[in-house]
C-alpha cells in the first residue's frame, strides 16, 4: 500500500504541492489528471525522491519509508543523461546494472512488442520513440510502485493502445501504477481510480466505477466539470 500524508513542496516563494494526502492499495492503477502546471510531475518527482518535500510529509510503501523507497519505486523522468551517441542497449544496461529487480526477459519482450530497436542511438529517436523506451524500462522493474509521467507524449493512437496493452500484460500483479496523462479517454478503460490535481491540491480521488455510475458521465466529461467548478466561473 502506498500512503502519502500531508505532502507539500515549495520552491522559492512558489508553493507547488499543498497538503496532499492519498492512499493507494496494492494492484491499483491510478490516473493522475490535471491541467498543465497543476503539479502532476512534481507529485511524481516527490514520490520518487527526486525532490525533498516538507519535513512533516510522510510517504510510505508497505509501511516502509526513507531511502528504501528508491528501491521500491520505478520512475524514469527522462533520458537526458544519456549522450546522443549512446544506444538503447547501453541505456538499458545501466538499469540492468543498477536495479536488482530489473527483469531482462520482460524488457526484451516489451522491446519487441513496442518495436524498440536496441541498436538505435538515443539522439536519433523521436519524442514518441523515446517515450516508448522510457515506458518499457520503467515497467521492466519488479517494483512495488510504478510511476509513468506522460507516457503518451508524442505517441500515435495505435502505439498508445499497444503501450496500454503492454502495461496490462506486464505489470506485476501487486504493483501500484500511477500514470499522469492528458489522454483521459485513452486510459479510462484501464485505470481503477482517478485523482485530479489542481493548483497543487488533490481535488478528486474517486474510483472510476463510482464516477461512471454516480455522475453518469465519462471520465473526461467529469474532469472538465470538476476543473471548471474549481476555477470558479471560468468558461470553456
Amino acid at each position, binding site marked *: 500500500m502506498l500512503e502519502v500524508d500531508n505532502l507539500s513542496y515549495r*520552491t*522559492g516563494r512558489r508553493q507547488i504541492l499543498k497538503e496532499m494526502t492519498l492512499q493507494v492499495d496494492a494492484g491499483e492503477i491510478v490516473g493522475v489528471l490535471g491541467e498543465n502546471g497543476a503539479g502532476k510531475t512534481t507529485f511524481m518527482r516527490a514520490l*520518487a*525522491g*527526486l*525532490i*525533498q518535500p516538507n519535513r512533516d510529509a510522510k510517504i510510505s510503501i508497505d509501511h516502509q519509508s526513507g*531511502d*528504501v523507497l*528508491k*528501491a521500491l519505486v520505478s*520512475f*524514469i*523522468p*527522462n533520458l*537526458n*543523461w544519456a*549522450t546522443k551517441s549512446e544506444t538503447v542497449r547501453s541505456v538499458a544496461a*545501466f538499469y540492468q*546494472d*543498477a*536495479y*536488482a529487480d530489473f527483469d531482462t526477459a520482460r524488457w526484451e519482450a516489451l522491446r519487441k512488442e513496442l518495436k524498440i530497436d536496441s541498436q538505435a542511438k538515443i539522439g536519433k529517436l523521436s519524442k514518441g520513440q523515446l517515450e516508448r523506451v522510457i515506458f518499457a524500462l520503467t515497467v521492466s522493474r519488479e517494483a512495488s510502485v510504478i510511476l509513468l509521467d506522460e507516457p503518451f507524449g508524442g505517441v500515435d493512437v495505435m502505439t498508445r493502445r499497444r503501450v496500454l496493452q503492454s502495461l496490462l500484460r506486464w505489470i506485476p500483479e501487486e504493483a501500484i501504477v500511477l500514470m499522469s496523462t492528458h489522454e483521459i479517454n485513452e486510459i479510462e478503460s484501464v485505470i481503477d481510480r482517478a485523482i485530479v490535481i489542481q493548483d497543487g491540491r488533490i481535488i478528486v480521488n474517486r474510483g472510476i466505477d463510482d464516477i461512471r455510475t454516480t455522475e453518469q458521465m465519462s471520465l473526461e466529461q467529469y474532469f472538465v466539470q470538476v476543473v471548471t467548478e474549481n476555477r470558479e466561473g471560468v468558461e470553456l
Partner: protein
Amino acid sequence: MMKMSKLIKLVAKDSYVGFQTFLMTVAAVLVFALAIAFKDSWHAGGIQLYRSLSIAIGIPVIFGMVLYVILAYAKSVESWQNAKLVLLPTTKWRFVLTNLVVRLLAILVNVTVASFVYQGVDLAIRSWLSVGKTENPLHMDWQLGNLWESSSAIILVFLFVNLIGLAVNLGIAHLMPKLKHAKVLVFMIAFLTVFIAISLGETYLLDFIGLGDFMMHALDVVTAGLFVYGIYWLYAHYNDAY
C-alpha cells in the same frame, strides 16, 4: 538496496562519460602539433627538434589536463542533480561519500597516469635525440611525490567546488531562476567570496594565534568534514534532481 561495489562501479562509469571524446580531441591536437614540429625542425635535429617536440607535446598536455580537471569538477557538481544517479537505490550518506571519493580518485588517477605517460614520452625523445633534461623549454618536472604532498589542498578544493557548485545550482533553481543562464558567473562570485573569507580566517589563525603544523592539519580535516557535511545537508534537504 544496491551493493556498495555496484554503486562504486556505476559512479566510476559515469565519471568517465565523455572521457573518450576528450582524449580523442587532445590526441587530434597533439598529432597536428607534432606534424608541424617535425616539419619545421626535422632537418635541424638534436636540441632544436627536441625543443619543438617538447612544446608540441607539452602545451596540449598541460591545457588538456587543466581542461580535464575543470570538466571533471563541473561534471561532479552536476552529478548531485542527475536523476539517474539520485534515484539509485542507496542511502543518501552512502551516495554522497561514494560520489565524492570515486570522482576524486578518478581525477587523481587520470592526472597521475597522464603525467607518467608524458614523462615516459619525454624520456624516450631525449634518449633518441641524446638531449639533456635541462633542454626542455617548458621546464616540466612532474613527480608523484608532489601530488601526494599537495593532496590535502586537492581534496579541500574538490570538496569546496562541489559544495559551492551545489549551493549555487540549488539557489538558482529555488530562489533565482532568472539567473539560470549566468550560472558560471554566479559560481565564480560565490566561489571567490567564500574562498577569500576562508583564506582570511586561516591567515588570522596562522599569524595571530600561531597554530602549529599539527593544528593546521587538524583544521584541514575539520574543514573537509564540514564541507562533506554541507554537501550532504544540501543534498538531503534541498536537492532538486532532473
